């Protein structure tokens, strides 16, 4: 030991203690949430309101199909909130790609209707929260149709050849074909799928494909360019603003039901902020605002009173249960089913390459 060991040790210790105190406190970098959803489903104004309230900015990145964003997630892309349909969720959960939601941060979950909780694709809603739902049916120009269009099979009616429109979404297009042939939208039977594919191949020359976007079919219907379109309530509501003859048909074989959910990818570094965003979007007024803008059927009980009475009473948006007797919701596929559907879809898309 040297002569004055203790003061020296003390000074050194003091310097080390004071050092962190002297360093400037760096404020945490502002959180930016990356939010993947259908284009136009949530307006920028709503996200601005969230930013104002929570100080968290949201980068809204629309996708063209959910299969696309799922592939990106599998490839390691990092997102914070991703809207996914029911059928995509179990596989992602099985692969550990979705985070478990901490419901202490999402008290507004109570707004979700009992009918949408604890569903088979995600028991007890561990990884997903229902956000919107709806029916996919046929939007028609009733005035231009020779006979009342009531079934999926009417898309194959020769008198509408070239005036039929659909989204290039595999589950929906194959689903419609399966339904038109009297099969389930969730069928994994190769024979039935083969039948459906052959029907689509037969339809292809008369079919106009347009990527999904809000009310993408409406202008075509208004102009009369298209008489029958695969569509949703938004197409109907937007189209009718210019052409009252546009009507919504829930096909007799059964409409295709869909349900979108908020999920948080396991890779998200901002899980809590993501949960705050989800909670914000589940708020009764916010949720109603979305519905008022998108004409979606909401699984949010608390939001119902805030929805425009006009929309609330519109059976196109909120169809009566009786009209949904044969409706089927898209269910998750088995791995073999996934492969089968992909093969079918590739064969369908191959037609376009052959033509070129």
């Amino acid at each position, binding site marked *: 030991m040297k002569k004055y060991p203790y003061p020296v040790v003390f000074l050194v210790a003091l310097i080390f203690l004071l050092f962190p105190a002297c360093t400037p406190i760096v404020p945490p970098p502002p959180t930016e949430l990356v939010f993947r959803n259908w284009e136009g489903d949530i307006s920028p104004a709503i996200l601005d309101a969230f930013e104002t309230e929570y100080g968290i900015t949201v980068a809204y990145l629309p996708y063209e199909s959910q299969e696309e964003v799922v592939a990106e997630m599998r490839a390691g892309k990092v997102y914070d909130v991703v809207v996914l349909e029911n059928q995509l969720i179990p596989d992602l959960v099985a692969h550990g790609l979705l985070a478990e939601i901490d419901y*202490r941060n999402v008290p507004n*979950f109570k707004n979700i*209707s*009992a*009918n949408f909780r*604890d*569903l088979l694709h995600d028991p007890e809603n561990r990884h997903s929260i229902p956000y919107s739902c709806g029916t996919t049916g046929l939007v028609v120009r009733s005035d231009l149709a020779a006979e009342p269009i009531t079934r999926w099979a009417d898309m194959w009616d020769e008198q509408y050849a070239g005036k039929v429109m659909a989204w290039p979404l595999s589950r929906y297009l194959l689903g419609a074909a399966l339904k038109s042939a009297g099969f389930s939208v969730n069928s994994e039977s190769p024979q039935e799928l083969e039948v459906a594919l052959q029907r689509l191949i037969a339809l292809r020359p008369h079919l106009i494909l347009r990527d999904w976007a809000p009310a993408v079919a409406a202008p075509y219907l208004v102009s009369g360019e298209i008489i029958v379109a695969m569509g949703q309530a938004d197409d109907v509501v937007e189209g009718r603003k210019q052409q009252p003859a546009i009507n919504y048909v829930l096909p007799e074989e059964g409409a295709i039901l869909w*349900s979108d959910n908020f999920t948080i990818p396991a890779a998200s570094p901002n899980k809590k902020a993501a949960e705050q965003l989800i909670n914000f979007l589940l708020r009764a007024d916010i949720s109603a605002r979305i519905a008022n803008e998108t004409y979606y059927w909401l699984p949010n*009980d608390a939001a119902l009173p805030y929805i425009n009475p006009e929309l609330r009473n519109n059976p196109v948006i909120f169809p009566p249960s009786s009209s949904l007797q044969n409706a089927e919701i898209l269910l998750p596929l088995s791995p073999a089913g996934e492969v089968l559907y992909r093969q079918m879809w590739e064969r369908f898309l191959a037609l376009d390459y052959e033509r070129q």
Partner: protein
Amino acid sequence: MTSSSISPIAPRQNLYRRVMSAVSLIMLFMTLFVAIGVTNFVYRAEQAAWQTRRIEAGRSAALTIDTFIHEIQNYVMLVGTLDRQYLEDNPRIMHRLLEQNQALLELMRLDREGNIFAVAHRNNAPVLAHIFTIRLSSWFSQARAGQAYIGNLQLSATDEPYIIVAMPAADGGVVAGRLRMNVLWDVVSSSRFGQTGIVYMVDREGNLVAHPGRDNVLQRRSLALRPEMAAALAAPDHEWQGAYFNFEDENVVGFTTPVSGGNWLIFAEISRDETLRLTYQAAAVLGGGVLALGILMTVLTSFVLRRLVLWPLERLRAGVARFGLGELDYRLESERPDELGQLALAFNDMAAHLKQRQERIVQQERLAAVGQLSAGIAHDFNNILTSMLGFAELLRQAPDTPEAVRDDLARIIGPGQRAAHLVHQMLDFSRQSIRRPQPLDLTPLLKEIVRFLERTIPENIRLELEILPGEYQIEADPTQMQQMLTNLAINARDAMATGGLLRVVLSRAVFDGEATCLECHRPITGKWVQITVADTGSGIPPDVLPHIFEPFFTTKAAGNGTGLGLAQVLGIVQQHAGHISIDSREGGGTTFTVCLPPLPGPVQISQAKAAAIPEQQGRGELILLVEDEALVLEASRRMLQRLGYQVLTAKNGREASEIYRDHRDRIDLVLSDMVMPDMEGLALFTRLKQQNPDIKMVLMSGYPLQEKEACLLEEGIVDWFQKPVSFAILAETIGRVLSRR
């Protein structure tokens, strides 16, 4: 006695403090031990009691809830048995069924496809709607698969908690009910125990299902993040108990038991502080009470210790300290019957003995001083008396001395001899006299002495001598024996002024400690020759008794005694290695008993012969006389010449040595004083003996010879005598020595 023995005691060495420290420590440890033991006992009892209460509360709540769920399930199952057609025909039936069970909010029957065909709900809007999601729901698919379903706690948009219960219906469809949660909440809310003990319920994930604090459930609070709860949550089918922090971060102890087949867990928990309240109280009460008791006991002990031991001990110490300071007449209190009383008694005895011892020592010192004094003056007195008596004798025997002068000379010689006798008595007493011990048979000696005594004591005193049969040979100086008996007889005579019996008994005695020697204060043991001199006189008063052997102590009127008689007796007895004891009662006479050591067997007894004074015995033999006192030298020279000897004189040893060297062949005898300034008689003898190994030398001394000197006598000094030198002794001794040639 040194002062340190009574100086204040240092605090650390203070017996009281040390004992009290030890007692306090023992008390402290004992009380601590008891307090800890009892607290521990209370702790165990309290914990056991609270554990029982937790388990009771938990199991009771679990039983209630299980019963409730079971009843609901039974009820729902009953609804499931009803015929579809019947229900469709009578839509009111479902409503009545719902009304009958207050716990149900909704009740519905569904077909195999999930279509509702009979439904009833309470006033508020139905929560479950007849839409496509029914087929996708867990409750439907599970019940449809044949299993009972009990859902987790759900919260409606209006904050109404509910649970969905679904059962397979008899027709293969499903019967479902939505269950009011308040009932379960009431169960747990009413299951409080203690002040903070609550019962609540969580699902398998640890999320609250029912809790007395309703908001905790509404806020979806959860125990899932508590690591210590992992064990309980990991085995929801088993009971568990332990300590943990609940979701409000309170330190609690809890008990869990599964409910509803492991769907939920009942928690019965209570704050740890409450379960320790009694323990804390016990610790506080015991800590305080036991401490107080300990202090009380310490104080009591202190008091008892002081009262019983320390104060008496202090008094004892103070008393003994007084002994130490010489107050040997002081007596300690010794009434106590205990050890301290006995100690006090022992100290008192010790003080008494010390007192006796001290008195004895004082007496002995006094006797020793007197002896020293006697011996000191005896030398000078003897020289004085030698010359005085010598010249008086010479003058009296001179032929030309007139008859009238002779009578006067006799009057000088008489007192002179008395003075010499007095000196002799003092030397006897101080054991400094020159003894001539010899084997002696006491029988004839005693008879002779008694005959002599008969002439000297008055006629009103009868003298008896009794000699018991036995051997009475001893080693003794006959002159001293006579002196001793004479002194005792004179004392007896004086004690019997009005007459009486003086009885002298000679006997053999064997003692075994029954008598005590007056001089050495030791018990007399062994075989002794015993001479008893008993009178019937006035006896010796007790206050006088201790002093009777003191020289010059006398009760007789001045002039009637010197006070040396008994002192001389004592000295003689001691010189003969004997003992003396006394038995005296005031008015009952006095008995002196002298014990002398007997000789082992019969010996040849030489008879002492009275010497006659020769007129002229010398035949001109040459004697060298050495004496430093001029008068003594002259008297002795004249006496020797009168006896017919030629005399050479020397005033000191050196001169004597020179004279002897010059006239060695002619000198027949050297007569030398023992004590001289330049050269002791013995030194002179040693020197002269170098010149002539066959030298004859006689020593005369005012002092008795010491042991060493007595040994040297054997080497050539043929005899010696004590001053003052009387004509008779001088003549007899010189004659005897010279005739030995």
